[in-house]
């Protein structure tokens, strides 16, 4: 659990935090499947969409991809983040997305790679079928 006083406890640990992944931050596995690289999770202020807020707003998770047709969409949980002590805050003032949140703090490689291992695709990138 994050002990940082900035952490917003109204964001439950099982809440999913959604993050767009651009094509140039993917890694292709030997079977052709793709996953995020740790670079996706290294931002000092890591922008996410808080899924529970989107549900309240009657929005589907995929709505986070609106306007970004080339990106994929992945999810980590607030609990995954808090295990490393990073606070999560809502950041919903206009012109931000009304479900926008931030994971604050300078990220370690250990954190960024743990998020790669914990992530689950919401909208996965296409599998690369024609590898070597």
């Amino acid at each position, binding site marked *: 659990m994050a002990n940082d006083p900035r952490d917003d406890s109204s964001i439950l640990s099982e809440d999913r935090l959604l993050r*767009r992944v651009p094509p*140039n931050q993917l890694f292709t*596995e030997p079977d052709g499947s793709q996953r995020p*690289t*740790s670079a996706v999770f*290294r931002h000092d202020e890591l922008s996410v969409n808080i899924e529970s807020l989107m549900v309240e707003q009657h929005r589907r998770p995929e709505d986070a991809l609106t306007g970004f047709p080339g990106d994929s969409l992945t999810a980590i949980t607030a609990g995954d983040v808090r295990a490393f002590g990073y606070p999560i805050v809502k950041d919903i003032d206009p012109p931000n997305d009304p479900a926008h949140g931030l994971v604050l703090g300078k990220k370690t490689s250990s954190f960024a*790679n743990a998020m790669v291992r914990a992530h689950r695709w919401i909208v996965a990138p296409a599998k690369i079928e024609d590898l070597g």
Partner: protein
Amino acid sequence: MATRAQAIYRTDVFAPQDQLVVTTSGSMQRADVFASRDRRAAVITLPVSQRLTVQLSVDGDPVAFTYTSVDNRLPHWAGPVLQSLSDRWGATVGWDSYGAQPTNPQLVAKLLNILSELMQPTYLPPQITPLADGGVQAEWHVLGRDLELVVAADGHPTYYYFDPGAGAEEEAEIDPNYARVQALIGDLS
């Protein structure tokens, strides 16, 4: 496997094209090599350092680097790495849809120089991934093991290694750990 225990010295060989690099440019040098009783000048020939220009195409725009070497050839790993850079370069502000900075050629050159120190002829070239702050990381992912060299806009370059089978995880600055990082690249190659 690594053949060098520790880097003795480091010289930048990659640079953005508008930046001068430190290089040995003279081809001939006079040196006294005999004692005074039998004194005469000897001429020794030093290899000529040559500067290659490598140009990447980033969204149709050129980004050029220079590479200084004595044999006028890029190292084996440079082709795949430069291709990865060209394919994945963050070209514009906000390229990640979250306000990312464009990839910084100075930070790219820093990573290429680190690779120049570490890579051996049998090593696998890494994939290059841009960071949101303009930095870059080189990464190897082999049989569940992960190795990353991270050159971010702030701080010193770092490495990260994870081996779930051995329960090992390391994260530290590269500079005092060149031999360790080189050995890890060798193990993953």
